[in-house]
């Protein structure tokens, strides 16, 4: 019994520590299991051997809207999933917080926006969000086939809500994926993620 408590305490500490420190570039991306808006279960480690993109999402956030109403995010999703990349849209808004959606609401949204991530993961407990210290919507993560974090930061270098900025922005996710898929190191592995704060439970 005591041992169980100890184990729980250790696990809790590890969870808290990882939540506090996040993951660093070049380190193993922490594993997680999450349920998507269509009821499917996804375990990150099942995608070993593939590149994985995590996209923190909040459909009511104007920074997210910038990239969806312009079609920019959907273009990226189409392009990279067609090339075998696993793309998870992650929604970490807690129930009662702005941006929380039910599975049905998310499915309606995906259809309406013509979005095509591999899956939209519902993370109302914030477990996945805290594991990666996701700060903003959008906040983008790229994981390589060995399960190592290779990009962590903003979607691009124009931290605004203006769609007109997309055309001239340098897209860090595209850049990272282009580089890693052609066997090169990521030239810009981190940036300050910009957007609305992730609406975790208080």
């Amino acid at each position, binding site marked *: 019994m005591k041992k169980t408590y100890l184990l729980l305490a250790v696990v809790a500490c590890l969870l808290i520590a990882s939540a506090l420190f996040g993951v660093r570039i070049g380190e193993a991306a922490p594993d997680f299991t999450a349920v998507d808006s269509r009821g499917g279960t996804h375990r990150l480690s099942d995608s070993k051997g593939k590149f994985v993109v995590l996209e923190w999402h909040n459909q009511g*956030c104007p920074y997210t*809207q910038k990239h969806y109403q312009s079609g920019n995010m959907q273009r990226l999703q189409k392009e990279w999933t067609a090339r075998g990349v696993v793309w998870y849209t992650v929604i970490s808004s807690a129930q009662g917080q702005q941006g929380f959606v039910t599975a049905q609401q998310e499915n309606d949204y995906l259809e309406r926006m013509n979005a095509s991530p591999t899956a939209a993961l519902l993370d109302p407990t914030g477990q996945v969000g*805290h594991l990666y210290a996701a*700060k903003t919507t959008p906040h983008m993560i790229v994981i390589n086939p060995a399960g190592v974090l290779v990009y962590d930061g903003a979607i691009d270098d124009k931290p605004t*809500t*203006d769609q007109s900025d997309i055309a001239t922005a340098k897209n860090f996710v595209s850049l990272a994926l282009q580089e890693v898929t052609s066997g090169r190191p990521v030239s810009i592995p981190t940036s300050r993620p910009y957007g*609305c704060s992730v609406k975790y439970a208080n």
Partner: protein
Amino acid sequence: MKRFTIVRWLVLVLACFETLPAAAQTPTASVSKVALVSEQDAVVPGKQFWLGLKFDLDPGWHIYWVNAGDSGEPPKVEWQMPKGFRAGDIQWPYPERLKSSSFVDYSYQDHVLLMVPVHAPLDLKVGESVSLEGHLRWVVCREVCIPARQDLTLVLPSAQHETASGSHNLFEVTRKRLPKPMPSNWGATAVSDKDQLELTINAGHRISQSTFFPLLPQQVENAAPQQLSSFPRGVRIRLRKSDQLLKPIVELKGVLVVAPDEAYVIDATVRNAGHLR
């Protein structure tokens, strides 16, 4: 009350979502009001004068400092000034640390004036009216964020002499909140040790309270508590380095607030703890 709030946010979010292209064009009069004001009632040829972007925010809403912190972005203005006029950079009053769940933003709430110095040309004719115009973009946040943009115009006469405008006092009050250069007899040094940065301020007297605001993003973890240790000649502040740091920090820049209306610009060279041993 709680239910009312949630419903209000839902309505707001929906409204935002439905009308964003339109909302982006119209000022968000309901939560943040902005006006262009001047410290003086006239422009004097060849002299510098001060304009201000005067923000009045509804309770609970905030806008952002030059380094926004973990989310958001600072207001940006593009000036359309008459020929020969030159507008300088926004002078940012020190902000406050605004904590929400696991984040910290550097923000302004309620009321703030963002002051901008403007130089008037020497060949300006006295008696003309001068139209000063700017296009302002900003984001105002509470549980949700609303982007806004607005064209601002202020017409002032040009004259030989100027007198204080009705907004003069607001400029005076705001000026006290602008960070000053660090006194020449102070010293600022920083030591990098594993995941910590220790900033030491030697002021010649004890500093018992202080808050450090990093000017550059991605140097320190904004939400990490700042550990102060006061000593007879100043203060030491332990900051946690940003998780996203890939290269060592060589220079730590920020604003140190030691008391209300007393803030200094800090620019400290960072040494590695290993080199000291």
